């Protein structure tokens, strides 16, 4: 921001206006020196805001210098933070970076956070690591793009940063130079980030609320900090910052819609703390179905962290969802009953969609076979009740891949057997039959976009969507 202003001023001063001014020397000089003074002042201010010193490089610490308890705690915290998901590219080595992250401003590539001395963070001291987490500045003093969610990580305590540092510094070093970001001007200039931080970064570690339970506070600390739930579930403004006025009101994650997880949640059966716990821990819940898209990786990570932390997250988030009044809280059986009464109208409205559903979907989704192996009854599907049709399009196209080494749900993708028109007919039918929401607008375009993005996504997304974080620690049903 400030950098851009500076450039505009400098361009005006050096341009043709200066020549016209030079005709009236005295006045021109005064104006000229005023402009110079302003520019200098601005430059000094901008420098003070944007400049950060380098922190001295260290010799990479030996992995043995970190206690095993500390490293283990760091592992759990890294799982909560979902670090590996962004810092690992498809088919790449863990934490070696290189994943392209599409943003409204261009593509940003995640960096190598293995302890490789040349291309990773091997020469970073703990202080340098903590500064990156707190204020988004790398060891050299360069501003980091907020794709790295330091607006959340700034909340993390010294203790937890120490554990994370210990965990990362004991990973296997991988030589993997960072890829050049593809950003348009002025976003390719890092001093612009300093302006962004002035506007949107609120420093400070989490301050517990003494009126709440320890569990609630622990949940708040994790959700608002390391777990950075809002990074996907809160919509962003034109400058790519989370909108404080719409916390958890639904946002974007890669090419998926991250559902609203506040009172506006589209889930047919309202969430409560127990359901959240089961879902975050096991990856599915009988009233809600299975975690898909980028959330699959999140729950895969959460399955191996201490149970008390998942309880804490569930407790805090249940408060964010809010408690619907008992008389307006539909139960599972009520939702299912509602659907049975609307099915006839929906079938008439869209015969093609109904026939596709009957032949391709109902065999799994209507057998009543319990989750996670049977399909969820689609009346319970959040994807179908959601205001955004993208997730349903993604799932129908790509299906649900099983997780290697685990008992997990499977759904075949239909990208090769249905064209966009047929998938659109199916989606419209599902919406009409299984939700009490108005029809989606522009479903065909959503499906066409999803098909295009699917190809890109499958080529670039990290493998972990298909691999357990740590098979020995999984406790899925």
């Amino acid at each position: 921001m400030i950098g851009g202003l500076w450039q505009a001023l400098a361009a005006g001063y050096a341009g043709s206006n200066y020549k016209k001014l030079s005709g009236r020397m005295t006045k021109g000089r005064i104006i000229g020196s005023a402009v110079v003074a302003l520019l200098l002042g601005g430059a000094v201010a901008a420098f003070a805001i944007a400049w950060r010193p380098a922190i001295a490089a260290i010799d990479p610490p030996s992995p043995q210098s970190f206690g095993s308890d500390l490293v283990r705690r760091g592992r759990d915290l890294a799982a909560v933070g979902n670090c590996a998901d962004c810092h690992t590219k498809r088919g790449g080595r863990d934490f070696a970076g290189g994943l392209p992250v599409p943003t409204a401003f261009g593509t940003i590539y995640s960096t190598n956070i293995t302890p490789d001395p040349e291309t990773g963070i091997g020469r970073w001291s703990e202080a340098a690591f903590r500064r990156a987490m707190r204020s988004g500045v790398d060891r050299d003093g360069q501003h980091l793009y907020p794709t790295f969610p330091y607006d959340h990580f700034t909340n993390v305590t010294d203790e937890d940063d120490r554990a994370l540092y210990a965990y990362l510094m004991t990973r296997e070093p991988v030589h993997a130079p960072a890829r050049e970001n593809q950003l348009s001007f002025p976003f390719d200039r890092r001093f612009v980030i300093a302006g962004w931080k002035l506007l949107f970064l609120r420093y400070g570690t989490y301050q517990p609320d003494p009126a709440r339970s320890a569990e609630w506070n622990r949940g708040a600390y994790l959700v608002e900090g390391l777990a950075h739930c809002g990074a996907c579930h809160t919509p962003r403004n034109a400058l790519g910052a989370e909108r404080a006025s719409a916390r958890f009101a639904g946002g974007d994650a890669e090419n998926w819609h991250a559902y609203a997880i506040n009172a506006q949640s589209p889930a047919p059966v309202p969430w409560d703390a127990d359901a959240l716990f089961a879902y975050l821990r096991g990856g599915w819940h009988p009233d809600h179905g299975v975690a898909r898209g980028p959330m699959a990786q999140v729950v895969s990570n959460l399955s191996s962290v201490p149970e008390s932390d998942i309880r804490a997250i569930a407790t805090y988030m249940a408060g964010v969802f809010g408690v619907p009044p008992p008389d307006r809280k539909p139960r599972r059986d009520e939702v299912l009953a509602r659907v049975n009464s609307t099915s006839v109208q929906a079938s008439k409205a869209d015969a093609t969609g109904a026939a596709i559903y009957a032949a391709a979907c109902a065999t799994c989704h209507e057998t009543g076979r319990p989750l996670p192996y049977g399909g969820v009854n689609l009346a319970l599907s959040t994807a179908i009740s959601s205001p955004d049709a993208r997730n349903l399009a993604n799932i129908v196209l790509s299906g649900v891949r099983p997780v290697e080494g685990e008992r997990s749900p499977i759904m075949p993708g239909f990208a090769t057997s249905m064209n966009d028109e047929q998938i659109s007919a199916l989606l419209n039918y599902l919406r009409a039959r299984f939700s009490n929401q108005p029809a989606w607008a522009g479903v065909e375009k959503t499906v066409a976009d999803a098909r295009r993005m699917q190809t890109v996504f499958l080529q670039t997304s990290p493998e972990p969507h298909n691999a357990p974080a740590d098979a020995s620690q999984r406790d899925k049903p």
Partner: protein
Amino acid sequence: MITLKVNGHDHRVDADPDTPLLYVLRDDLALNAAKFGCGLGQCGACTVIVDGKAVLSCVTPLLLLEGKQVTTLEGLGTIEAPAPIQRAFMEEQAAQCGYCIAGMMMRAQALLQQNPKPTDEQIRSELEPHLCRCGTHMRILRAVHRAAHLMQTADASTVQRSAR
């Protein structure tokens, strides 16, 4: 009545539009290469090729096949004149019970038509939806590589018809 194009021939089929393709292939057309495994699109045994792409015939209703070309294993070659993919599987003895193999061959065929020289990684990733309980995976991998090789050498193909 629905007209279905299978292995280059038009067939008049008397079936509901929501009938799975697999049932028609096996019950009406007596094309038994595609197998019923799970009926849920989870095992791959029923895979056939539709317009050049591998499709799970047990979850593909007839109404999705209007104007499309279906190819089953029978359409690739015969016992006397096996297609390269079939020859490769025989030469590598890439079957034990063989129940999954027709499906494996069809998806491998679709892959090779798209990508004549797939890497090991690409073959593994492509064939991931297919289950084999006998553990013949390493032979199947070798067979797909061999088929790729056969398809590229002049003497390989006898009457190889490209599956559409």
